[in-house]
């Protein structure tokens, strides 16, 4: 694959199928070191499927997927995690039968050859975690779950974080807190982020470039501010627009 040395994630001609139903068609993505990149699109556009394809979950894929130059396609999901992909799924999937601390400790096994972040250091970096650490996973609000899910994905020092609609169902004030947390991550943890979202203000605040999906195809890509200023593009590809 023809990528620059600081490419963290690259997909080429990525196709994905649920059974015999094709859900992704020739998706090309590139995320470079330190970048936060938006993945936009309406409900059913293929954002979560893109993450499933990268993680080798649920879908059958063809095409190339590389993480820092290493091929991911066809590897098992746990091997992909250990190579350095952190996945924060749409429904967060906190282990409700474990404490928050155990949820975090657990992820330390995912490190492969990298050193895990100590849980206490993580709490220092994300102070909002402090009051959650002793709770059980079933005693968290939506926003708290989101924060724990992100923290859990960071423990193993992934190179790439896949965030699937982190603001979904959260109150505006909480969204702000999550945005502030996400903003610090690339520098703090040396991680790049692919952020699937429908919340355009949130994407505008956090990302430098966007890919826009429609029915499994990339229909637009470019700098975030260009997309954020183009009401016609937004009308065409999103349910809600912000530019007047």
């Amino acid at each position, binding site marked *: 694959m023809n990528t620059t040395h600081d490419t963290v994630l690259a997909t080429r001609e990525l196709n994905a199928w649920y059974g015999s139903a094709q859900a992704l068609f020739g998706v090309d993505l590139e995320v470079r070191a330190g970048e936060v990149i938006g993945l936009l699109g309406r409900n059913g556009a293929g954002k979560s499927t893109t993450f499933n394809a990268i993680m080798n979950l649920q879908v059958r894929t063809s095409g190339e997927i590389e993480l820092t130059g290493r091929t991911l396609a066809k590897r*098992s*999901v*746990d091997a992909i*995690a250990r190579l350095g992909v952190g996945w924060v799924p749409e429904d967060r999937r906190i282990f*409700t039968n474990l404490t928050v601390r*155990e949820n975090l*400790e657990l*992820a330390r096994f995912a490190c492969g050859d990298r050193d895990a972040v100590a849980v206490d250091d993580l709490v220092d970096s994300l102070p909002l975690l402090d009051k959650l650490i002793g709770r059980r996973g079933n005693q968290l609000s939506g926003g708290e779950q989101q924060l724990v899910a992100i923290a859990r994905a960071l423990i*193993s020092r992934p190179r790439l974080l896949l965030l699937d609609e982190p603001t979904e169902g959260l109150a505006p004030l909480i969204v702000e807190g999550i945005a502030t947390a996400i903003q610090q991550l690339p520098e703090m943890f040396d991680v790049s982020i692919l952020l699937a979202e429908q919340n355009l203000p949130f994407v505008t605040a956090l990302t430098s470039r966007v890919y826009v999906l429609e029915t499994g195809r990339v229909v637009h890509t470019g700098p975030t501010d260009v997309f954020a200023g183009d009401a016609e593009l937004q009308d065409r590809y999103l349910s809600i627009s912000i530019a007047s």
Partner: protein
Amino acid sequence: MNDLIAVLVAGVAQGVPVFVVASGLTLIYGVLHVLNFAHGSFFLIGALIVTTTLQGPSLGAFLGSILLAGVGVMAIGVLSEVLVFRPLYKAGSTVSFLGAFALFLALLGLATLVWGTNPRTVAYPSALDGSFSIGGARVGQYDLALVAVGVVIAAGLWLLLTKTSLGTRVRAVSHDRTMALALGIRAGQVSTIVFGIGAFLAGVAGALIAPVSSIDEGLALSSDYMLPAFIAIIVGGLGSVPGALIAAIALGILESLSFRIAPSLSGFSYYLVVAAFLMFRPQGLLGSAARSTAMAR
């Protein structure tokens, strides 16, 4: 009153081997979503190993045999997981259940091949062959030893599951295997280890009942131990070790009580309990309703 103590101790002692079998079954169910029917043959083989390895009446020799039974059956369990269940895992729990049933029959056949079909017996270790008087009630020494063993095993499992990293992984994999994998957990490895632990416990349970029961292939499906163990994991909630503990001990006491009070109900009381649970609380005592929805996905 004296009677009550005797009935209680006998009931708990009856419940301990049931709990030891059931804890392994329920752990395996939690992690692999397999109802391991082959556990009955694990249990039988554990008892049979004692009949051949036990050298003399000393307590030390008996403990040694228990350990051999546990380790021997654990080896069978690990091989079973790798050779039988791992290839079937992707085919779903129905196929895995059939695999477990086939394994049950195969191991039963193997056991009769090695040990024959004649019932065997094992003597009590001499140090535990007698009875105490507690407040006037006669209590068997071996029964009391079983109660102590039950406490040790329950405490050991609790420590393992809640205080070790393996335990955290086991609980995570049984809650949401996919998410555990997506965090890099080697869930396959966890499955093999849990299967080994479950088999070890079944072997130990078989060894523990060797002195109190006639040992023949009927043990593999015995209404004293294996059926109550299956009932205990349903009543306790599939996947829950504390649930299995409470259910196994409660069933043991219930059986012991009904034997004393209404002998005609004895051997039948279990089924009343399990029927009531299946009707009114199908997720069991400590099972989560969430687990059944997670499984349905």
